[in-house]
């Protein structure tokens, strides 16, 4: 087990440990296991050593580098890093070096964190297993015959394997929470608009949100506090920002009303449900009031999501045209060049979603598909609103199963999409949710339980997560 981010930062700030030694310890673990796991597209070892040395110089000079001083962090490879390749695990962006840093990357650095590498993902974050990476899948550190989950599989695996105590992912339909559950780590999808999307390569702009993965609830809280808050460079960033989480983290759940979502018990493996029930018992024992709640339209989330997200993606991914960055396949005229470039550069799942989205938006089908999906999105958000009139938090599984075997769902896109059934509704509503590891399934692999909260309910959600962490 690796040290927590908070322990590392406390030691580095107090000069009990040097940041350069912390980096070497983590690089040594990477050397040992990365060949088997493939968490990273790129390990930025020389840069990490330089950044750590700079942290040590500042501490020696009496400066405080910040709350994440000397803490190694893995960044999902769809977060822009100036001068450092950012691929989105796609051939179409292979080798691209962004001319700017994502806001979340700049904020982590300003808090003293040290970037150790760019982690693998499903191409453009489209997938639930990280098998859709153009550079090969990430394997689950608990069992390398299983997937790590996706799309932030590299970030989750990096944290689970001790390559970095913390990582950033992005969550459009569950892409932080699902791999967190499969790899046995904490993963948080914050309220839409609380974390800047500036420099996050866009997939589905009304759903995408950056968030932390960590081994502990407290580490996830500090990372979220560092990266959150209004950003004038993101016009969907909400001005009120994210309130503090850490000060109330240990306040417990006495008197909180927590609803177990009835509809997200259907189609879930029995051993996973048993862990959800155990989590409910633990919360009840800590003084929360538990009840079952119906969120009637939640099951329609899958359909709404797989129309809305591809529709937005088909528009967002129009920018990969071989003109300004990335791959170009030369042809005598521009239209042919664009088609040749996109056909060679995108993998099968990305093509599938672009076509699905283009179809849903095309003349004659717009109202039947995209228009209807937007209405279903409203129904789901309203159903959550009704539930939150009676409950402070909701509880469900994060995923219907534990980590599945490599290749098990690759041939059937719909089977892969169904993996996201518990996580998608949150993104449609724009609410926060997090996955907390809570024991293991019949196969011995980690099970995550999902806590859901209303808009800006992060502080309350983290209190319940801290109780589960103590009880597991």
């Amino acid at each position, binding site marked *: 087990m690796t040290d927590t981010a908070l322990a590392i930062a406390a030691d580095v700030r107090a000069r009990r440990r040097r940041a350069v030694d912390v980096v070497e310890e983590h690089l040594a673990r990477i050397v040992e296991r990365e060949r088997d796991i493939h968490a990273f597209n790129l390990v930025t070892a020389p840069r990490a050593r330089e950044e750590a040395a700079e942290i040590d110089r500042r501490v020696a000079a009496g400066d405080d580098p910040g709350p994440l001083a000397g803490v190694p962090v893995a960044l999902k490879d769809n977060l822009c890093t100036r001068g450092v390749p950012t691929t989105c695990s796609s051939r179409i962006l292979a080798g691209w070096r962004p001319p700017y840093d994502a806001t979340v990357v700049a904020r982590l650095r300003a808090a003293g964190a040290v970037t150790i590498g760019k982690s693998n993902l499903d191409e453009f974050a489209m997938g639930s297993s990280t098998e859709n990476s153009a550079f090969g899948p990430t394997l689950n550190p608990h069992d390398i015959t299983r997937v790590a989950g996706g799309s932030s599989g590299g970030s989750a695996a990096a944290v689970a394997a001790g390559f970095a105590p913390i990582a950033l992912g992005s969550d459009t339909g569950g892409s932080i929470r699902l791999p967190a559950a499969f790899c046995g780590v904490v993963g948080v999808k914050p309220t839409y608009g609380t974390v800047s999307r500036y420099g996050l390569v866009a997939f589905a702009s*009304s759903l995408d949100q950056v968030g932390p993965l960590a081994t502990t609830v407290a580490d996830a809280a500090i990372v979220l506090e560092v990266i959150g808050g209004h950003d004038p460079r993101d016009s969907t960033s909400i001005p009120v920002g994210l309130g503090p989480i850490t000060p109330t983290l240990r306040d417990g759940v006495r008197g909180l009303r927590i609803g177990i979502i009835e509809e997200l018990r259907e189609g879930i493996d029995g051993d996973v449900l048993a862990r959800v029930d155990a989590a409910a018992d633990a919360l009840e024992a800590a003084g929360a009031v538990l009840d079952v709640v119906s969120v009637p339209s939640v099951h329609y989330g899958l*359909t709404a999501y*797989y129309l809305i997200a591809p529709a937005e993606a088909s528009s967002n991914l129009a920018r990969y045209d071989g*003109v300004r960055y990335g791959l170009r396949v030369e042809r005598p005229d521009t*239209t042919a*060049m664009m088609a040749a470039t996109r056909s060679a550069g995108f993998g099968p799942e990305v093509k599938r979603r672009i*076509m699905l989205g283009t179809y849903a938006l095309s003349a004659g089908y717009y109202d039947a598909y995209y228009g*209807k999906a937007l209405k279903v999105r409203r129904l789901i*958000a309203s159903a959550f609103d009704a539930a939150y009139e009676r409950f402070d938090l909701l509880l469900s599984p994060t995923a219907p199963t534990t980590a599945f075997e490599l290749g098990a769902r690759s041939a*059937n896109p719909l089977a892969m999409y169904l993996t996201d059934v518990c996580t998608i509704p949150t993104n449609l509503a724009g609410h926060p949710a997090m996955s907390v590891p809570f024991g293991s399934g019949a196969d011995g692999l980690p099970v995550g339980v999902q806590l859901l909260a209303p808009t800006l309910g992060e502080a309350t959600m983290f209190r319940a997560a801290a109780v589960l962490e103590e009880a597991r």
Partner: protein
Amino acid sequence: MPAVSDSISRDDVAHVARLARLELTPDELETYTGQLASVLAHFHDIDALDLAAVAPMTQPYPLVNVLRDDEPGPTLDRDEVLAEAPSVEAGRFAVPPILGEEP
């Protein structure tokens, strides 16, 4: 208005691929048609919902136009941006001919 359950044909997929600037081999066209049809068949579930009185929701918060003060600020470095382009001419992105092609 067509129901969500209406299936997708090979011609539909070929048309959509053309709109999205994707070239498909005959094998790919066959595979994608089958896969997209099976995904669309699942979407049949929302046909049963009465959505007549429901307002569409395009994003989690009401859209508000966000404008900043009209004052010059730092921008991306031109050379750094152009260094990443596949082809550059006279300080600009260069593309193959665009005239004389199909619209």
